């Protein structure tokens, strides 16, 4: 084991850990957008997933129950959003911002009341010992040099995410169901004529998206950090929205974008730490750069990558057009 190998192993593992919640939420958002519904409020749903997973795990002591609660909460948020946009014909962008507010508000409220309640009962608000998840190491496979630990020393939800990606990619591109989902967003009239119920189909896609975003929230609170803080997603939901466009509404593009983002992020963290200890004069010169410029790096890199690739894709045609559409 030399240093380069160590570094690659460490960076790739960090990148996958950071990218997992974005991929998970992104797959849901992608399916929703392909069916013709854009949900800007994904950040709010993720926050609700965080708080639901954290409080339920804190009360019951079982992480799995917390995860399920987060998925259920995400689906409840999706039901509200679907009711407003699909049956209530609300504008999706506006309703999405409202869902974001709702998530921020409700999660903050629940968090404060949960703290008061636990303290009155004389309990700590921390998770019970051992109830949060820790990484699952898959024997033998994680010893593959370089990239073994990146894929085989991750949290349980990461493995599920990988399976989900494969299944979703197959479904979207090679099955009748996938064709229907894409048609819902590109040609709802054709779906209607073929006997597919457009609003029902879109609702089911949204339910899937909500479940994914809820699970991504659970990943942040009971796996990655074992803690909750108000606004803990820190804009990750918005980054996911951006990455769906970045990947041009294609699943491999989305996953690539998330991994790229995660990699730059782990790279900047490593650089930040390394510049103080390294003997290398170039690295050492970086000690004069404020650390915020490192934090900025993933976002600047994303903008730069987009500017260089420079090809526009319009995306699903019927995004934010309610069904049945008004004849003019």
């Amino acid at each position, binding site marked *: 084991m030399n240093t380069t190998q160590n570094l690659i192993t460490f960076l790739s593992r960090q990148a996958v850990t950071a990218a997992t919640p974005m991929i998970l939420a992104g797959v849901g958002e992608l399916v929703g957008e392909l069916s013709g519904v*854009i949900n800007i409020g994904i950040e709010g749903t993720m926050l609700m997933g965080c708080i639901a997973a954290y409080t339920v795990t804190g009360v019951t002591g079982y992480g799995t129950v917390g995860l399920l609660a987060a998925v259920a909460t995400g689906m409840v948020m999706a039901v*509200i959003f679907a009711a*407003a946009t699909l049956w*209530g*014909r*609300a*504008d*999706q*962008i*506006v*309703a999405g*911002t*409202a*869902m*974001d*507010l*709702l998530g*921020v*508000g*409700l*999660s*903050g*409220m629940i968090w*404060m*009341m949960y703290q*008061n309640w636990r303290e009155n009962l004389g309990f700590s608000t921390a998770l019970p010992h051992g109830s949060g998840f820790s990484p699952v190491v898959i024997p033998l496979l994680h010893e593959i040099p370089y990239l073994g630990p990146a894929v085989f020393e991750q949290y349980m939800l990461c493995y599920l995410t990988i399976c989900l990606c494969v299944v979703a990619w197959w479904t979207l591109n090679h099955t009748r169901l996938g064709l229907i989902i894409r048609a819902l967003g590109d040609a709802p009239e054709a779906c209607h004529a073929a006997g597919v119920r457009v609003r029902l189909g879109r609702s089911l896609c949204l339910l899937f998206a909500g479940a994914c975003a809820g699970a991504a929230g659970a990943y942040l609170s009971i796996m990655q950090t074992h803690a909750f803080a*108000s606004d803990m997603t820190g*804009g990750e939901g*918005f*980054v996911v*929205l*951006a990455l769906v*466009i*970045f990947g041009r509404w294609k699943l491999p593009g989305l996953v690539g974008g998330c991994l790229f983002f995660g990699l730059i992020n782990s790279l900047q963290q490593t650089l930040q730490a390394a510049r103080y200890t390294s003997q290398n004069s170039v690295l050492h010169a970086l000690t004069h750069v*404020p650390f*915020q*410029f490192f*934090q*900025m790096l993933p*976002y*600047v890199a*994303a*903008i730069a990558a*987009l*500017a260089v690739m*420079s*090809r*526009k894709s319009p*995306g699903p045609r019927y*995004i*934010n*057009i*309610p069904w049945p559409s*008004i*004849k003019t």
Partner: protein
Amino acid sequence: MIRRLFKRIWSAATAVTLAVLVCGAVLTLAIGAAALLGYPPLRVADLWLHGAAGSWYALSSSCADACPLLLTGLAAGVAFRAGVLNIGAQGQFLMGALVAVALSTRMMICHQPVLVIPIALIGGALAGGMWGLIAQYLERYRSVPVVLSTILLNFVALYLAEAALQGPLQAVGTAAAQSPEIAGKYWLPLFVAYTDFHIGIILALGLAVLLWVLQERTVFGFESQVVGLNPGTAKAMRMPVTWRQFQIMFISGGCAGLGGAIQVLGQVHFMTAHMGNYGYAGIAVALLGRLNPLGIILSAGFFGFLDTGAFRVEESSLALPHDMANVIKAVVILVMLVLAGISLWRSRRVGNPGSSAPTETPSA
């Protein structure tokens, strides 16, 4: 003519009545929810009302809280109406605040408040506008959608502000990313003593009226609306589409930047990089106000009223979480949206071309 005027007043009146009814219903529900959670409902309502509008001071702090929301709301409203999906008011707000703080704490050339205050405000607005133009440039010349680049630029602005506040602009004697307090003579003057009524509020209201005139009564406003509804049509009508989009983005970013400048000079008097999510909240304000500058005044006032009251309730012995205000806002927006969507659907389905259609919001 008179009939048309009457019709307009009537439709505006019904819209306002509807909004008031919805807000009332939601507030009642919220107080009911507070009762269910074990808080004394009447006392919550009492504290909320008094905290937000019970005295001149309370009213002024509601207005001062609504002021940045009004400006970021205008930023989103102007842009969305022209089809420029500027989600970056948060970043533009921060850049405006940053430049205003830099100019008012580090400007060495002159010390006359009469000069420094306008320079700081204009500098803030320019900074916000320029930050917005980056996104528009990327859209026009590098095909990066504005929605995307503005989201990413928000984070860049956040870290840039933090770097500056921990570097050249840092206050002496702290380790935190925080600017020194702005000297008292550079604060925005108050027009009612011992309250929070600073002239920034009047400035924001004036700007809203100005933008309304610009949108509704000028060729510029008409053209930018056509650009928003259908760029192809606008091009066919030989409108300068690209130029209009750049102008709109500059105005939008400028509003947000001015909001940041007014917030630091008029209200908080120093700066940290976490001054509240005014930029994101501005999107909701604009959309609740139906992208109409006058409607945005009302919705910003409503948001400010809710927030200020909620903080007073949280500070009281009841300790009801102030995030309740966000939940109420979200429910109000959803209900109003559904009502508007359904009424539009009904009026069109019956085949009634004369009915006034609500302002269209652009599709993504």
